[in-house]
């Protein structure tokens, strides 16, 4: 039976036609190959409103190339803060139910130690301690090893970010983020989700920090 050609007795487009056409559109989107999708998305991008055209070149340059189209972030809670990582920068989520190897001596308080994943030693950061200087930290927030439950391992597998809990995965457009692009005193801050004031972390800058402290090479 050819559903596409089915018509009701009055010759009008039937409900079934409409529903088939919706399903076809749905499938077409879901099954777009990534490269083709990018190309089509570029072609179909509507003209930006005038307000957008006056955005300074500087602010546009803060937006990473990958964030020009829709992108996803994973939001998590750490201490009392809500933070996020772009999904593209994540490799795996592992339970922190394993031994954390800690080094004695002078180490930054945001480095809680390393865990073994397979045969690899992965340093784990506590970003609550990293982003909040000591005077601003809440007395209600427990020590990292008492509250962290999971570790997000970054895409290159070089380090992990400890989290208390995962909140949600969210799809954003670049206009929903105030982009920082590594400027100012907080190079690890890629941007802030405007509506929720949730900090998006810059994995590249965090890695530089770890290199500076000889935690990763």
């Amino acid at each position, binding site marked *: 039976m050819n559903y596409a050609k089915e018509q009701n007795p009055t010759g009008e487009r039937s409900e079934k036609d409409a529903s088939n056409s919706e399903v076809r559109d749905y499938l077409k989107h*879901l099954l777009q190959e990534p490269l083709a999708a990018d190309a089509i998305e570029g072609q179909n991008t509507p003209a930006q409103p005038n307000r957008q055209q006056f955005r300074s070149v500087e602010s546009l340059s803060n937006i990473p190339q990958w964030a020009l189209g829709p992108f996803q972030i994973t939001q998590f809670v750490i201490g009392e803060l809500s933070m996020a990582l772009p999904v593209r920068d994540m490799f*795996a989520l592992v339970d922190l139910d394993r031994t954390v190897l800690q080094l004695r001596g002078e180490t930054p308080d945001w480095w809680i130690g390393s865990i073994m994943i397979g045969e690899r030693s992965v340093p784990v950061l506590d970003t609550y301690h990293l982003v909040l200087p000591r005077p601003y930290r809440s007395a209600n927030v427990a020590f990292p090893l008492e509250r962290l439950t999971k570790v997000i391992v970054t895409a290159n597998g070089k380090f992990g970010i400890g989290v208390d809990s995962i909140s949600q995965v969210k799809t954003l457009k670049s206009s929903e983020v105030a982009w920082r692009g590594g400027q100012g005193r907080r190079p690890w801050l890629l941007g802030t989700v405007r509506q929720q004031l949730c900090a998006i972390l810059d994995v590249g800058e965090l890695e530089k920090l770890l290199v500076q402290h000889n935690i990763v090479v």
Partner: protein
Amino acid sequence: MGIIAVANQKGGVGKTTTAVNLAGFLAQQGYRTLVVDLDAHGSLTAYFGYDVETIDKNVYRLFTGVTDVRSLISTTQIPLLDILASSSALVTLDKQMGAQPGKGLVLRDALRMLSQRYDYIIADCPPVLGILMVNALAACDRLVVPVQTEVMALRGLERMMHTLNMIKTSLRREVPTTIVPTMYDRRTKAGVEALLQLRSRYGLLVWEGVVPEDTYLREASKNHLPVAYMSDRSKGALAYAMLTDHIRASESTQERVSA
């Protein structure tokens, strides 16, 4: 590596039983086999003793950023048989992802990483057309559609075949399909009529055998074992053994044709 999707938009037709028992026979014959549970209800996951509410290594994570599918696989008590478990969070996927471009290809891309590790992958689909069924159909080389031999179930099959045609058009390729009559009771007139209707309507797409009603299949499910490991002489076991051979033989024919 062969990827087989077991799907039907109607529930309760024997999808999970078919997935488990195909996988069981393949593993018993020495093929490294992975089952993938794409149904948020997690019947397949529960079959192998895992809980969809708590299992951390699950297929949902593939859609939320984990790129290495190998880190999400769990073993089962059956030698050579592993599982990529379901998660109750899968129910949120359609809402989260909508019709984002390319999200129907996540499973296909992930399973490609396993081509050296498994001989067969069997995906158990949810009974709805959504992102998970589309992923399974985009990833698979062959589709197995279990159909209860009952007249009402045939209507559901019509819908499934229509959906499949639309997906094939979007994929721009054929998906070899085997319709498997299940829960067949030859003592009832309704069962016999439904089987005849099925064969007259879908012809060669319908497997020549039938999976009969068999208490051993239920017993096997209760014991969390594929029937191959319970009673390989029961009617249900013999049927699934024959179906496994049929699928293996069809695959060899297809390999020869495409070579």
